């Protein structure tokens, strides 16, 4: 028995980093950042695919930061931290994509401005 402290529960960002993991995180992040800036200005990638590539690179880099800087994992001691993260991602997804979907739908169904002016006369 451990007395009053629990074994195996972890705090984000604490006690699991080393110079090596931070250097690895920095290296991955620099490569992904440079790749993003390259992808935004290149003609080597088919135009319409560029936003998807940028989104993939950004999500990848966020993952690198979570793993190498926050030290969040899906391991046993991290269950609370990981579940909170998953819920956060869920809400962010709802807010961002929900807003864009609803506003695009409203925009598409709105009476064009010139017609609206005529109707008001």
């Amino acid at each position: 028995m451990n007395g009053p402290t629990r074994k195996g529960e972890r705090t984000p960002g604490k006690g699991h980093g080393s110079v090596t993991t931070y250097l690895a995180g920095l290296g991955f992040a620099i490569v992904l950042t440079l790749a993003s800036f390259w992808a935004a200005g290149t003609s080597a990638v088919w135009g319409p695919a560029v936003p998807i590539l940028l989104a993939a690179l950004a999500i990848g880099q966020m993952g690198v930061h979570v793993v190498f800087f926050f030290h969040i994992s899906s391991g046993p001691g991290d269950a609370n931290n990981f579940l909170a993260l998953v819920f956060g991602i869920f809400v962010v997804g709802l807010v961002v994509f929900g807003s864009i979907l609803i506003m695009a739908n409203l925009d598409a169904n709105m009476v064009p401005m010139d017609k609206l002016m005529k109707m008001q006369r």
Partner: protein
Amino acid sequence: MSLADHLTAPVEDDEDRTPYSERGPAPIDVVAGFGFWLFLLSDIVMFSALFAAYAVLADHTAGGPDGVKLFNRGYVLIETMCLLFSSFTCGMCSLAIERRSAPATYLWAAVTFALGAAFLGLELSEFSRMIAEDAGPTRSAFLSAFFTLVGTHGLHVTLGLLWFVSMMAQVATLGFRPIVVRRLLCLTLFWHALDIVWIGVFTIVYLGARW
């Protein structure tokens, strides 16, 4: 090893097998870290609303300048690198805190502060240039959304810098007592979270990712 053996084999990890009801309260380090992690996630949810507003309004320039005309990618790459390296030096700072080494903590905190201040200076000079070019937040819906999103991030960086100053004063006067170490942990998490938000900012705002 058959599937049945595999399923019944003991799991080898360091997880506590005591029932939750018998484990007693979690140590305060875990509670504080988890609580601050929840705060950071809720902060990111707030940013997501600003991102959504920007995404909806980005094309509504009201005849004013658009992002392609206003943003300089080389400049943004320098800002991004400042913040990214500051995240790394912040990690070095948390390793120094774990060793309870005050000189190393001051050194890495100072480097982090300098990089954060450089980022903020670059951002403020970009804002003042845009406002001087009649592209301020009142010019169009696009620019209102831009200044709100990027300005809120800049405000967070400013608060982080003030927090760094405050924490270094606490290390100097109080030393590495448990409450100071917990606050330092929260500060380093806050700083890493700022960098994660910035990834979204440079991808969506400056590199103009659209769907």
